[in-house]
């Protein structure tokens, strides 16, 4: 067998595997759309569940998930970005920073149900926030913190040092350099981290199980101390523990479809943002 043929075969194997992955992805998507699109209508999106969750809509769960996305980002983003700035721009590469990095990575590997337990113990009970948007947001925020830190660190490290030295050589302080040169350049990639975190947060069930999610709560929240329904948990509930599982099945697929679409919209929104800012701070 010639070298050339060998290379060709390898190429085709890689290509085939790539296509299989894409195929599986499209299959899942198609499956959900096929089964879920039937129940989606205006009523489904804007009304509360009825008939022991075999009828009506999922509006409260949509609102709840949006609240949790927003809340957890407000928690995780400032903390994550600031600690990434600290570790990459200020702390050098000493023991402390390496320790922080290892701990951050470990934090990212902890199963999400553990975060749920921790959140219940600290936010719900000890701090007395009860089952609430606040407790859920903090729990989800902690969960994605490692992701935010990591992606922000990568974004900052991708900025060549020549821009930093250029700024410092003009008499700018380190903080000014970070604020005026480094962060604007890193922003598009930091936003990518935000996208990933939102995807993660909106799909998690375990962390909200004991901290915020309501089984059935048609009333919309009025404050951060209210409980809410949430899409992934709602999906879990109607798929496993309703009064009439069979007739709730289409609603389950509909819910899954909405969840996917929300994540998709977030991604598109973020990539538009990213492109917009990417143009503004264009690097060569």
């Amino acid at each position, binding site marked *: 067998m010639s070298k050339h043929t060998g290379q060709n075969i390898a190429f085709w194997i890689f290509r085939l595997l790539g296509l299989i992955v894409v195929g599986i992805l499209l299959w899942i998507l198609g499956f959900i759309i096929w089964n879920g699109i039937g129940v989606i209508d205006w009523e489904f999106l804007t009304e509360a569940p009825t008939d022991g969750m075999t009828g009506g809509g999922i509006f409260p769960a949509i609102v709840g998930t949006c609240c949790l996305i927003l809340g957890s980002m407000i928690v995780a983003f400032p903390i994550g970005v600031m600690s990434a700035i600290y570790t990459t721009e200020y702390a050098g590469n000493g023991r402390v920073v390496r320790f922080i990095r290892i701990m951050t990575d470990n934090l990212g590997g902890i199963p999400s149900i553990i975060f749920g337990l921790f959140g219940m113990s600290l936010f719900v009970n000890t701090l007395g926030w009860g089952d609430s948007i606040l407790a859920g947001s903090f729990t989800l925020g902690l969960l994605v913190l490692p992701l935010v830190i990591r992606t922000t660190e990568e974004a900052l490290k991708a900025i060549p040092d020549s*821009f930093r*030295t250029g700024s410092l*050589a*003009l*008499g*700018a302080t380190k903080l000014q350099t970070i604020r005026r040169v480094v962060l604007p350049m890193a922003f598009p990639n930091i936003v990518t981290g935000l996208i990933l975190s939102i995807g993660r947060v909106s799909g998690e069930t375990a962390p909200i199980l004991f901290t915020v999610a309501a089984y059935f709560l048609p009333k919309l929240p009025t404050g951060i101390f209210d409980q809410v329904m949430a899409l992934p948990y709602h999906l879990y509930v109607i798929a496993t523990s309703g009064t009439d599982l069979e007739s709730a099945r289409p609603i389950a697929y509909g819910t899954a479809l909405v969840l996917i679409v929300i994540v998709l919209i977030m991604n598109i929104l973020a990539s538009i943002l990213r492109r917009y800012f990417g143009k503004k*701070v264009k*690097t060569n």
Partner: protein
Amino acid sequence: MIQSKNIDFYYSDFHALKGISMEMEAHTVTAFIGPSGCGKSTFLRLFNRMNDLIPGTRLTGECIVDGRDIYARGVNVDELRKQVGMVFQKPNPFPKSIFENVAYGLRVNGVGDRKFIEQRVEESLAGAALWNEVKDKLKKSAFELSGGQQQRLCIARALAVKPSVLLMDEPASALDPISTSKIEELIHELKKDYTIVIVTHNMQQAARVSDKTGFFMLGDLVEFSDTKKMFLNPDKEQTQNYITGRFG
């Protein structure tokens, strides 16, 4: 005037500069030449304390800029870097507009007056012989300029904060011959108002632009004298060999 007295400099254990003393007068151009790795850039970076950014470095001796030891206690490094500007080997404009690049040094120093900034930006671009080429596209990204224009933009950016000293580390090594000669002409012009120190690997360039030349080797300052003398009739054989290209 800038001056170094008995400078020894270490990167951790590595002795990069060995007992260097020299004096550079105001409104002159001093060139540093020498084989790669001999410490030219390291020595240059002492004068705006850019070496401070490298962990594990150590310095003994005195560095004096305009009568003041810049490594003394209580020296404000940010202020020093306004006074001692630097131009790097590779043009490194910020991903901002041409105007904002030049205005940057003013903005970080708290200047907010728009009229003043506009005036200083124009002055600086003119000073860097770039104004005529960019005056109609100040709002455009700096990356739309050619390499040579970008380097002159970086010079303008340094001039905008009114330094007294300009350090240039191989400012033309990434440029084509025409851009290079533009930068050289510019150095001639700038000499009237600034004290200039330039590192170069190009002997002709050193001979063309500088008044004095220092020849470095392995962390030693082998010879330091008038450029004319250095290139016609150097004292040391090592210098002669390097200049005539017999090694290095």
